[in-house]
């Protein structure tokens, strides 16, 4: 049977086109690597923006994300819950107490026995200290608070905690990042590790570094969380996205923040 295939391949009518395709696939296979981006080549999606979009992120009066940061400041100081306390009552001036926090999140929560992201930390604090109900995912208040808190780390380098308890979750995040999924049957790594810097539908493929979250995405015309962005990626691959708050997103974020170590936080970032 095999010699028939070989005859057809080498001499058949489509032989040249087929062998060319196989050759391209082989070259792609050989150049395909599951290797991480070397630290000196890591860069934020900011580097891939057009001049005007960069200017929009750089100017606090032009950056719509700052509207949410201001809202977050008001919420930080507002009394709430049956405890009738504010974040400020315990944490004081966020510029001091929250400085560096977003840069080292997600962090392991001993009581929950798993890592939690910043949004979940906010809701845990509300539950335990303010005796207030959780803020829904993607609600304006939760986005405003996480934007305000993350903004306090703007300019600081991503510093994932050196916590051995995070190791299995980082591994899970990496596995999710490298697994093929969806009808398109592609993995995150295939675009963001192997083809960053190249163009897709006219846009530059970024590395997928979560340095600006929550981010003002021009596509949303609104501020949104990393979970929302990851859902867009998953839908883009024609796969079923996990529900908001799923541990898969936290694992992914834990891995992504490790991968982004050293890059500066930009919250609120602006992205297409």
């Amino acid at each position, binding site marked *: 049977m095999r010699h028939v295939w070989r005859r057809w391949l080498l001499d058949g009518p489509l032989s040249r086109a087929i062998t060319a395709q196989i050759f391209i696939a082989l070259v792609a296979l050989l150049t395909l690597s599951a290797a991480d981006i070397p630290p000196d080549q890591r860069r934020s999606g900011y580097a891939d923006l057009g001049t005007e979009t960069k200017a929009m992120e750089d100017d606090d*009066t*032009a*950056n719509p994300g*700052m*509207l949410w940061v201001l809202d977050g400041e008001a919420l930080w100081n507002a009394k709430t819950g049956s405890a009738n306390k504010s974040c400020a009552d315990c944490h004081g001036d966020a510029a001091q107490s929250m400085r560096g926090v977003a840069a080292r999140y997600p962090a392991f929560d001993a009581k929950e026995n798993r890592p939690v992201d910043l949004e979940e930390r906010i809701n845990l604090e509300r539950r335990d200290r303010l005796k207030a109900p959780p803020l829904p995912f993607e609600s304006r208040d939760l986005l405003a608070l996480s934007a305000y808190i993350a903004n306090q780390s703007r300019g600081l380098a991503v510093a994932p905690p050196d916590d051995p308890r995070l190791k299995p979750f980082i591994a899970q995040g990496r596995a999710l990042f490298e697994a093929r999924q969806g009808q398109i049957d592609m993995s995150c790594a295939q675009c963001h590790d192997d083809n960053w810097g190249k163009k897709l539908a006219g846009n530059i493929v970024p590395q997928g570094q979560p340095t600006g979250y929550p981010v003002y995405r021009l596509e949303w015309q609104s501020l949104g969380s990393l979970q929302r962005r990851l859902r867009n990626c998953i839908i883009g691959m024609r796969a079923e996205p996990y529900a908001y708050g799923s541990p898969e997103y936290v694992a992914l974020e834990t891995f992504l923040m490790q991968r982004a170590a050293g890059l500066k936080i930009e919250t609120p970032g602006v992205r297409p």
Partner: protein
Amino acid sequence: MARALIKVPPKAKRGEVIEIKTLISHIMETGFRRDNVGKPIPRNIITQFTCTYNGEEVFRADLHPAIAANPFISFFTVATESGTIAFEWTGDNGFQETGSAKISVE
């Protein structure tokens, strides 16, 4: 809730041309989108932005649905005297928002 961000230089020399930047929180719903069951979402936009300098209009813009959400408008004015530079945004569904900044001109 933070509605607007304004940037006006706090000090200027008389006759100096200064730049003013404004950003307002607004969805600028075009009226051409449909919801997830196909029903048209009604238009909801800011239609006018006005800037006055000690009560006198120095800049005005008529906005259409083509203006992006969270409208950003920057423009220039001559620093004529100390006082208040005031802003007003009006639009559909009785939308009205105001802001102001003080300027010291020597």
